[in-house]
């Protein structure tokens, strides 16, 4: 199992020259508010209050509507004509509403005021509102604010904006620690925690933790290991607090997970032998799981539409570990600093696109007739009806896909459309 040296760690040079197709036009993507749907499950003591319009409320409930909650931990303060008439009025209204809300939910410890397109266009100052409310509510409840608006953020960037709000609150520490950045399913977080422990990396913190009130400390001896490629702003803010960024591909598949863990292992002086001893069995297990899916995926062509910024990482995994042929890899936003290691592992002959002109991109899809198109739910059924197999992309954000023991599941998500087509006889 000692193929440690085969795992490529890209150098910064080279990947920056890769040509990128940049397009502007209609973008079929979610806004950052959608992040609330998973963030509120992770942060169990937090409430997310969107300040916006009925459209914002409708979006969140359409995304989360099949879940039936005893008590949802998100809501919308819907702006009405009255609020638009005068600003002072809107501030009073917001304060009143937050206090009413917190009386109803006394267990809430962190209240996020989430900005939307309407609140930003009318320049409702939510940062000031948060300050005002903090003066009144601390220490029982901390009020934070970020923007999840469509004009500022795309889908997963909502998480980035939310996590970014923790950075100024973090106490200083000089202790040596590893900070994993990005919202992970609990089971994945536990697996990584175990693996770091086995590697002898004792002091590991996850951002976010399971409670918004538990803000980790930060300082010059903190190593940052991003687990999601879309948290660039948060990572840069953490670096500005003195933390050191470990560069690695993201932990998707055996190769990605190994390289990711290895970045931490190197920084913490774990010997290659110790690393192999810890990861070896998991890598073997992963290979068994992937081997089952490979026949379904190898040689098939793949077209990815922009959605979550996970696209370059997933394309790398599908190409290198499952043998898929990449046609176009679209991403809503190409954060070169965050995905440089991934770009270096992608083949040269693919189209890498940033942004979107939906109709033109669909023309390219139809011309290429890929075996599998990764796209949002607004496009999936229409493309299926045209005879194209699709994999809806949002599921990739809502499923445990990181790490060794999810690699098989991740591959299966892409293999399932083929397996299904093979089964259906009508």
């Amino acid at each position, binding site marked *: 199992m000692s193929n440690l040296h085969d795992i490529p760690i890209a150098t910064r040079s080279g990947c920056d020259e890769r040509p990128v197709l940049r397009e502007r036009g209609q973008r079929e993507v979610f806004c950052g508010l959608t992040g609330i749907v998973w963030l509120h499950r992770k942060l169990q003591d937090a409430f997310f209050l969107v300040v916006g319009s009925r459209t914002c409320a409708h979006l969140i409930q359409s995304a989360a509507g099949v879940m039936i909650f005893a008590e949802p931990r998100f809501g*919308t303060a819907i702006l009405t004509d009255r609020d638009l008439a005068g600003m002072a009025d809107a501030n009073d209204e917001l304060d009143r*509403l937050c206090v009413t809300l917190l009386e109803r939910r006394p267990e809430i410890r962190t209240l996020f005021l989430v900005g939307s397109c309407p609140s930003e266009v009318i320049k409702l100052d939510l940062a000031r509102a948060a300050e005002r409310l903090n003066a009144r509510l601390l220490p029982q409840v901390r009020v934070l604010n970020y923007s999840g*608006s*469509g004009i500022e953020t795309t889908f997963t960037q909502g998480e980035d904006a939310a996590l970014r709000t923790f950075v100024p609150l973090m106490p200083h520490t000089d202790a040596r620690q590893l900070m994993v950045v990005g919202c992970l399913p609990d089971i994945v977080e536990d697996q990584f925690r175990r693996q770091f422990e086995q590697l002898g990396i004792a002091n590991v913190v996850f951002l976010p933790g399971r409670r918004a009130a538990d803000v980790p400390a930060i300082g010059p001896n903190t190593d940052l290991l991003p687990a999601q490629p879309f948290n660039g702003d948060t990572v840069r803010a953490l670096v500005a607090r003195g933390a050191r960024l470990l560069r690695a591909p993201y932990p998707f598949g055996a190769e990605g997970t190994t390289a990711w863990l290895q970045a931490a292992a190197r920084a913490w002086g774990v010997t290659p032998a110790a690393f192999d001893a810890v990861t070896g069995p998991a890598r073997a297990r992963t290979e068994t799981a992937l081997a089952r899916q490979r026949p379904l995926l190898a040689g098939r062509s793949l077209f990815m539409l922009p959605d979550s910024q996970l696209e370059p990482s997933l394309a790398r995994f599908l190409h290198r570990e499952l043998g898929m042929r990449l046609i176009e890899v679209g991403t809503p936003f190409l954060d070169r600093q965050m995905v440089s290691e991934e770009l270096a592992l992608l083949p040269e002959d693919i189209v890498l696109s940033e942004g979107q002109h939906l109709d033109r991109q669909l023309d390219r899809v139809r011309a290429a007739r890929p075996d599998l198109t990764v796209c949002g739910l607004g496009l999936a059924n229409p493309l299926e009806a045209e005879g194209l197999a699709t994999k809806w992309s949002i599921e990739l954000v809502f499923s445990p896909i990181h790490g060794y023991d999810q690699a098989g599941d991740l591959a299966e998500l892409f293999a399932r459309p083929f397996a299904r087509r093979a089964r259906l006889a009508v």
Partner: protein
Amino acid sequence: MQLTLWTYEGPPHIGAMRIATSMRDLHYVLHAPQGDTYADLLFTMIERQDRRPPVTYTTFQARDLGGSTAELVKAAVAEAFERFRPAALLVGDSCTAELIQDQSGALAAGMQLPIPVVALELPAYSKKENWGAAETFYHLTRTLLADQVPAPESKRPARDPARRPRANLLGPTVLGFRCRDDVTEIRRLLDALGIDVNVVAPLGASVDDLRRLPDADFNIDLYPEVSRTLTGWLSRSFGMPATRTIPMGVGATRDFIAEVAALAGVDPSPLLAAETPGAAGRGSSASRQPWYARSVDSTYLTGKRVFIFADATHAIAAARIAAEEMGFTVVGLGCYARDFARDVREAAARYGVEALISDDYLEVEKAIAAAAPELVLGTQMERHIAKRLGIACAVISSPIHVQDVPARYSPVYGFEGANVLFDSWVHPLVMGLEEHLLQMFRDDFEFNDAAPASHLPAVAAQTMAVAELGMSDADDAPAWTADGERELKKIPFFVRGKARRNTESFARSRGLSTITVETLYDAKAHFAR
């Protein structure tokens, strides 16, 4: 500002999208920020449509706000026209675009496209989805029929007796509740009456179809939330009468047949020959519902307490069915649309309850907890409430989720609709024998209050029983003795809440400070139902 956990209706531009997506050759350019394309999912996922909604979004971003977003609109309009070649174009703003005031409709109208362009003014901060749909349907049709409006006071020519009477079916849309199958059901009824369908709109209609609306003799206002604005205008401008009866339930379907026959000048008696209210037996109606409801198996449904909350059309119709055709007791009736409040208040008065007119989910939840019903007939939102309170629930109106756009034929209008409603309302209730056994043996280890009905999937048993809710909130609430409390627990869970409240109010009215077993039974005799 209004705190909203769940919203009953989307913003008005969703209503406009429902019109555009229901039709065939109409396109909609929507000036909206990046992200508002989430609305496509309503159509491709909930309605499971196999094509993209005919909507082009400008999807502006923050960086566009510095430049000219108006140019974005013009580019999007030009591109949409070039690519999709629609027969007419809707142009309008979403809530954020409304704030930056690009006047997208006026811009598009000034572009001299060779097709009708309808500029939509949908105030997103005061109006909602159904209003947006009604307004869009009305303005679109009005634009298309502008050159056909007869001079005021001119008489509508009498129908040529050689041709069958013709009606338009107005109001069905995608994302409406069971519209697809209701249309089929009503078509059948009309055909049996010898009436032709001229145009069904907006569902399935083309722009040219809308131009043919005046060829009909009258209109059937099938979903007033969407179509009443238009049928009112067609009545005023073209002298076309419109129906008022919603054919949901057996009684209402019979009334509808009589009303339609009168408007069309045809004889309804062949169709109504077997429809005798009160007649027993399987052949008493074209629907099986009357016999099912009369069969002794349904006796236990008598007086079941039902709370109804929906759009006005379905709520009012459901209340009549509940009271007259199922033998339930209506303990609450309400709707989320203020525009139809008067109709709902009138209906509520007939059942001796106060109408609840509110779009506040928490207020609805409070009213349901206070009424402690055994069955809730509502929307997707009431499913949340009913689950939390541990009450049986069936969905009768939008907003809906994907399970209420079923593959099978499932109208709620007409005679088959009555069959569908009987099944779907009875299904969530505990069945008769189980109900008896629950009362006789309280301590069964696997078959008890906490266990869900055995014919239902085992979903979350940890709901807050309705019995424990909405009671004893006043300071003067009498205290329960331990014996009294124990006895109360012996009452089946679905009526326990009501029993607790009745007993407390009985005790209060008698000036009693404690409730014993005796008080409980005194109250029971007092309120005997």
